[in-house]
């Protein structure tokens, strides 16, 4: 006679109330999860664009001066005297607007990635002025309606004093959304104590004598453009096939490179870790003025990149009128000269040259062709490539990011 208990064990289902409850719970959970998932997604910038057209006259009429300005900028980009900025102090004195200056922008892409969730959600970013280089992120911000249209009736100084090269640039016709803060040059900087021979070309970055002491930028726009220039290709007219060739050159250079740096390239150059590096002109001049007299900035014979950093007002800014006041205040020979004398990039106000020479008594800066250039700069300088759509931008990224992330 078989053991009844054994038979029972074989034939009875091992389902208890607990297991059924668990199964039902799990099933319900999965169903709700799937329902939620199908509704999930991250809103894109285009989708976040508000559909209604903004009446800009009403916008500017509805905002008033508040006495506070939150100004986000790049580091080393405003005059500095023991931690205070004389130009900002002058602004506060003459208009009564307190400025909270935040040099938080280390590079375009990371900064844009930081503020885009806010921008897409139409929330205030906490900044009234942001400074972005002409390029993908700037175009995005303009096209997606993230930045306000400027009221030029309150910007008379811009019309009066701005250089022709910064009026109505191709990335922002009519200066509808942006005003140039500084124009800059990307060339090569080197430490003349470690490198005694003259540096003239991108090929010098390949020199094995400098192995392990070459710095390059991790901004892939700059890096890719450097690769293109090294091969004699004008970045503005390059094709994806050219990009691949540039990536090849950069890969060839890679064993020489000690690192792909963001703004920290200047720290590495100053403390001697790198001897030669891609560099932004003003940073190098500031380093020289700050005591590192052995550093030199050169325009390679293949050319240098020229770009504009532009002030823009995010649409949800809390103090847009104060931002406009600063923009107008800046575009005068005196203030632009105060800033330029320190920052040493390319000045958007030509009349500042006389001010620097006479009032500030700084002929080195006033006469420098890299700060107040003449027309010869156009032959040596090249613009970044302008992407036609996101897929091209993605292709550029996919071509050059693997070199940085290796």
């Amino acid at each position: 006679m078989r053991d009844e208990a054994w038979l029972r064990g074989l034939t009875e289902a091992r389902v208890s109330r607990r297991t059924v409850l668990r199964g039902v719970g799990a099933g319900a959970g999965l169903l709700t999860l799937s329902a939620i998932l199908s509704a999930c997604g991250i809103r894109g910038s285009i989708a976040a664009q508000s559909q209604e057209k903004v009446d800009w006259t009403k916008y500017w009429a509805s905002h008033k001066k508040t006495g506070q300005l939150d100004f986000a900028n790049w580091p080393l980009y405003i005059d500095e005297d023991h931690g205070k900025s004389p130009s900002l102090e002058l602004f506060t004195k003459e208009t009564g607007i307190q400025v909270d200056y935040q040099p938080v922008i280390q590079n375009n892409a990371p900064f844009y990635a930081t503020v885009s969730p806010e921008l897409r959600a139409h929330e205030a970013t906490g900044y009234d002025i942001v400074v972005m280089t002409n390029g993908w992120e700037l175009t995005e911000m303009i096209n997606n309606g993230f930045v306000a249209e400027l009221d030029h009736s309150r910007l008379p100084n811009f019309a009066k004093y701005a250089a022709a090269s910064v009026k109505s640039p191709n990335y922002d016709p009519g200066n509808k959304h942006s005003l140039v803060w500084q124009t800059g040059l990307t060339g090569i900087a080197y430490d003349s104590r470690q490198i005694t021979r003259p540096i003239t070309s991108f090929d010098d970055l390949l020199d094995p004598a400098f192995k392990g002491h070459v710095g390059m930028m991790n901004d892939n726009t700059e890096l890719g453009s450097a690769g293109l220039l090294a091969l004699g290709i004008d970045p503005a007219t390059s094709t994806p096939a050219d990009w691949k060739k540039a990536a090849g050159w950069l890969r060839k250079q890679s064993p020489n490179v000690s690192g792909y740096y963001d703004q920290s390239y200047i720290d590495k150059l100053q403390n001697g870790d790198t001897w030669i590096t891609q560099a932004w002109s003003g940073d190098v001049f500031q380093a020289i003025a700050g005591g590192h007299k052995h550093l030199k900035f050169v325009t390679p014979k293949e050319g240098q990149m020229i770009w504009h950093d532009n002030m823009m007002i995010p649409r949800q800014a809390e103090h847009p009128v104060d931002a406009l006041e600063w923009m107008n205040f800046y575009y005068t020979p005196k203030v632009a000269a105060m800033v330029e004398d320190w920052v040493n990039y390319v000045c958007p106000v030509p009349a500042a040259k006389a001010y620097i020479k006479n009032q500030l008594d700084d002929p080195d800066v006033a006469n420098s062709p890299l700060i107040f250039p003449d027309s010869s700069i156009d032959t040596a300088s090249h613009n970044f490539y302008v992407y036609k759509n996101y897929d091209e931008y993605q292709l550029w990224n996919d071509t050059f990011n693997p070199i940085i992330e290796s």
Partner: protein
Amino acid sequence: MTQTTTARIATLKSSVPVENARQRKRPLLPLFFWIVTGITMVPILVMILYSFNNTPTSRITFSWSGFTLYWYENLTQVDGLGQAFLVSVEVAVLSALVSVALGTPLAMALERHRFLARGPLSGVVFADIAAPSIVVGAASLSFFLSSNIPTGFGTILLVHVAFNIAYVVVVLRARLSGMGHALEDAAADLGATPFAAFWRVTFPLLIPGMLAGGLLSLAMSIDDYVITSFVAGPTVTFPLFVYGAAKVGLPPQVLCFGTIIFVVGVVIAVLNGILTRRLPVAPVVDVEAPLPE
């Protein structure tokens, strides 16, 4: 005979180190310890030293240019540093308070009760501690992006509380399990309701644990970089500020802040050590141990 054996066992049980007698002939281990400890202190000493360096460029440099208190006098000169520090302190204090408030009942439930959700909840708390910061930060950002919650001070606080609760729970569970049921049982024997037993017996005993958990949360929150970098958005906390500022050269004021925090921490730790040594400690009654003869 018995007395000497008892005495010997007593000597062994005390925390007299076993190898005391031969210590002087084997300096290798102490040497190793002091060398390593010295190396760990090197960056701190460098930080303290260079916070007094009179650099001409208002960024730290290697060369020593003379002693100065200028950077201490002008701590807030650097744009954004004071603000970042305040934000960090605010987030740390708030998250410590909230996480202690939420974590204490959770620890009590997990330690003192047996219920269906206990296993899963314990697992969640463990996972919270064990999870790498990068995964937590990345997941939190995905969550906020998907829910259209703009990142900023609020999201930093939410996420900091989330990981601090786990630390508070772990500390308190350890305290609770070490405490045992004896005192609460005694209170019940004397007619206390469960709530009264908790409020008048358990809670006062828990306060040091809550304080410890709170301080731990404070420390973890103020020093957090990785998770905060994902969910901070435009808000800048102190570690985020330092990370960014180092790219163009650290301003000496950052070192001053670090030195001040360090000194304050050392003073608190030393005071704590002195106090715990001087004050009489209430003995915890071990009801299982046999009464002394």
